[in-house]
């Protein structure tokens, strides 16, 4: 088969980026896969141990606990910020003069670094001088005695609340941008056909931004399994491992327990979970008409 010149040129344009990506992303990523088969403390010589790290992962109760926490995290993030972001985006999209103001206000938490926001919220959630003092003064004794970050039953959700506070504004801006791209003549046509606001939303707005919804869903699913910063800063996986998630457990194994080989194996498992969830979401989105076939 004769290769035409015009067929080669586009590949030449993407070749430099591909080479750089292969060198600094793909090769190190695959080295993770290889190192998962070694007993390695992260510094010295590694010892090949085959699948032993993976066998240990399936016996390790903390891995199971971490995955459960990631799933709980995912359930929170796939519902609350998406619904909140979407509803507020709809409301803000109807504003004319003050739209920029609200867009900015809701987006600000997203630009605050996790380290700063995490520390601020830790102070708010401190039982001795945080919001509990306010609750106490208002006579809400039960709330005043709540240990937001110290009670294993609620600590994960307290941290998720803070990450949500940071995250939902970004989702709102994505939805708002998508809503503004929907052809206005479709709304006019719907009104001519007698559609009310809810029907406009259901039959024009949502189908119009379905690809953005699919994108947000897929990124939320993957990021929920990769999240690290707020948990690490606010609870460090505690109390009593109640907020341990895959990423913090990987970090601890790599840098606290000096078990880099095991941490690499955990990375492989984490990647596997993300890939499965990615394709599951793609399949459901296509079946549900969220994405084109």
């Amino acid at each position, binding site marked *: 088969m004769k290769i035409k010149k015009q067929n080669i040129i586009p590949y030449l344009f993407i070749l430099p980026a591909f080479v750089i990506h292969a060198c600094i992303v*793909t090769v190190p990523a*695959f080295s*993770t896969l290889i190192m998962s088969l*070694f007993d390695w403390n992260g510094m010295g010589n590694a010892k090949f141990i085959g699948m032993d790290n993976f066998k240990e992962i399936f016996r390790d109760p903390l891995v199971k606990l971490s995955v459960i926490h990631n799933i709980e995290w995912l359930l929170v993030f796939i519902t609350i910020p998406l619904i909140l972001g979407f509803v507020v985006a709809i409301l803000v999209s109807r504003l004319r003069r003050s739209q920029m103001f609200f867009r900015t206000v809701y987006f600000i938490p997203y630009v605050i670094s996790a380290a700063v926001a995490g520390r601020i919220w830790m102070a708010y959630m401190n039982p001795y001088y945080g919001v509990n003092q306010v609750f106490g003064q208002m006579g809400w004794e039960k709330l005043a005695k709540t240990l937001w970050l*110290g009670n294993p039953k609620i600590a994960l959700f307290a941290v998720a609340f803070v990450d949500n506070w940071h995250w939902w504004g970004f989702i709102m801006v994505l939805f708002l941008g998508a809503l503004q791209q929907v052809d206005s003549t479709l709304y006019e046509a719907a009104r001519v056909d007698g559609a009310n606001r809810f029907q406009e939303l259901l039959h024009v707005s949502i189908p119009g931004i379905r690809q953005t919804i699919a994108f947000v869903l897929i990124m939320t699913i993957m990021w929920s399994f990769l999240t690290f910063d707020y948990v690490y800063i606010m609870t460090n996986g*505690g109390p009593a*491992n109640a907020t341990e998630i895959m990423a913090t457990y990987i970090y601890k194994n790599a840098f*606290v327990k000096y078990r880099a080989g095991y941490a690499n194996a955990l990375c492989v498992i984490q990647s596997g979970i993300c890939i499965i969830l990615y394709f599951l979401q793609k399949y459901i989105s296509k079946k549900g008409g969220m994405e084109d076939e």
Partner: protein
Amino acid sequence: MKNGKKLWALLLAGTMAFSLTACGGSGNNNSADSGSTGSGEATQEENDTAGEAAADEDSGKTDSGERQKLIISCYLADDAQVAVREKYIDEPLKAAFPDVDIEIKMYSDRQSLQVEVAGGGGPDILDLDGPTDVAEFAKADKVLDLGAYADQYGWKDMFYEWAYNSCFYNDKLYSLPTSFEGMVMYYNMDVMEANGWEVPKNKDELVTLMQAAKDAGLIPIIFGNSDYQGAVDWLYSTFTSCYGGPAAIKAAMEGTGKYTDEPIKNSIQTMVDWWHEGYIGENASQSVSNMDMLAFFSEGRGPMMIDGTWASNQLLATYPECNWDSEMMPQDEAIGEILPFATGGGYAINANSKNPDLAAEVMNYLFTSLDRHYQSINEAGYQPYPLKEFDLANLQGMDAKLMDQYELLMRAQDENKIGYCSWTFYPSEMRVYMNENTDSLFLDVLTVDEYMENAQGYIDAAREAGTIPVLP
């Protein structure tokens, strides 16, 4: 064709997910060999050869006349701390080694240093967290055996035996202790005096005081670890040493006893019971940070705080108005007074260093320039090196509370009232386990029996591997 596209999509998605989660490869040219110990030995031999070559050079310049460079790692510090360090370490070093470019390099976190060393680089002298940290570098052949230098400079006779011996791993000396510290009970004397309380002399009096403080609406023993879970090692090191007894711990580590034996188990049970009673941290220690802990203590939210001797400098610098005192943990009459000891850090020589002899010479200078050292303790609150020659008489004029604390440390040392802090005397895997799971005891996620059994498992593993720390 369609299947081909799907295959590509799968491969690309897989690569993307790996890219996002990869926590790094080996970063080490030698790291992926099939586990033969031979290569590790080869690395050590190469380093020894490099050391011999370096020995031929004078301490300042190479044969070609170029100035030698030596890098020492240190922890991240603010401007004020850097200024102090420059006065007491950087400048004296430059004066003592005028022909050497000595750089003190700050590392914001441990993993940056670890990754640099793993990659074949890093500073010549590593300022590490202590024996358990050094052991991990030693396992990887990333720090040099200092045995020959110890003979050359007579280090064995310079340091207190307990501190010097704690720096051995697999019968080889890999570091030198940069400080010694201990766990003590701090008392806020204003709170004590306001309530008419006396400093308790034994465990029973302590229980009475804790109950009185609780009844007065105070936090009996202020403690918090929300920002650093591992701070629980201050607690279990104190309780096992003071109420389990050093003899029981030593027996467990040496294999003549078990960590599950009644004395140690009961001491852990006491710690858990006191936490449940609200005596330690008022059942909210997981919501209070280390910084809060000091603030609460100095504000008088409670009369007592279990903390290390390092906290005294923080109290003096941040809360100069606080009227505090420190004593050994009130004794269990059957065991007597015990002060859990630890070495706070360790200097080791990077196996990648091109100037190991010079690094050893610089280390020797730091431990032998005692005028500089006394000045740094007296004026800047530096922790003392565990040197036999260390004489408190040279610290006259320093803060009286700090002086009292040093006297306490020296007395405990001289009278052999030494207990064991986990970060110096426990196998590192055991310490990690206990740090991660002590809160589970407090929050009833784990039973004391399970906790002790698992801890004993780590001792057994360390004994089998020959990596059990040496206890004095």
